[in-house]
């Protein structure tokens, strides 16, 4: 049986937008992640880049990864801090 743990978090940011995160953790590293919600992000398909960047990373790298990713995108209706926060929440629940 495969021992991955999954976790889930939903953040309602000020202004009412939601960010939803599902993660899987294997051996202390992110092995699944899906980020969804009703925020705005430009260009839109950069959401896949964030998911890709986080895959295989240790949970401690989340802040750095999101920070780096955020340099190349425009987030509207939420902040990079919101993304960090909700991803870490989901990870904590997977532990």
């Amino acid at each position, binding site marked *: 049986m495969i021992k991955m743990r999954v976790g889930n978090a939903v953040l309602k940011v000020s202004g*009412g937008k939601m960010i*939803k995160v599902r993660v899987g953790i294997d051996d202390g590293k992110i092995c699944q992640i899906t980020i969804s*919600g009703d925020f*705005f992000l430009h*260009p839109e398909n950069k*959401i896949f880049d964030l998911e890709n960047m986080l895959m295989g990373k240790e949970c401690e790298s989340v802040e750095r990864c999101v920070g780096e990713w955020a340099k190349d995108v425009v987030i509207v209706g939420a902040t990079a801090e919101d993304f960090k926060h909700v991803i870490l929440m989901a990870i904590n629940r997977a532990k």
Partner: protein
Amino acid sequence: MYLAPVMSTKMRLLLTGPRNAAENMAIDEAILLAGDVPTLRLYEWSPPAITIGYFQSINEEVNLNECKKRGVDVVRRITGGGAVYHKHEITYSVVLPEKLVPADILESYRVICGGIIYALGALGINASFAGINDILVGGRKISGSAQTRKKGRVLQHGTLLLDVDVDEMFTLLRVPEEKMRDKIVKDVKKRVISIKQVLDNYRKDDVIDALINGFCKALHMSAEEQNMSDTEAEMARRLAVEKYSSYEWNHMR
């Protein structure tokens, strides 16, 4: 101080009437990708439809079984934002070269949404811009918009509610927590409004005319009715079938 707009730039007006959800979203994408002139499009939905934002999970936002039962279309947008139930409304889309709008996205929402505020003003309704992209009447939302930018162009589309039935809407939309459903529905009822609730009498054609004039004023352009080009029509036809009717796009997240 009010400055009269300089009607120097011409904008194309597309009145595409009521269409199904896949066609409507396909036309918006086609005029964004293939259209090379500033465009204002006004349209409606038949059958009624739900659109979800680019980043949303269709199954988490929408009760697809109920939509199927009631003949309501469901489609994913290329723009972010939330799920919208399109029934009694006029929907607009504006496509402009990026250089004609503020580079800052929040600023550009404000400029383009100005068209709706002018339109409501002309109908005698006092409306104000709020948040990222909402338009409020008496503190309640009457219009929402969403924007994307591709190939040096901006597409902004959005709604102006003619009427609203929040109970019906929530038979089709899911809520983040079922136990909170009643509270959420009650809250939303307090927070939205439609033209019907503000004006004793209105004619849809007057709303459409007001929107055309409002966007002309907000964008400092004049509008001339035209048809889609053959290239756009062909691209729209293809996108409607291959993209917006596909499980793969609509169920992407």
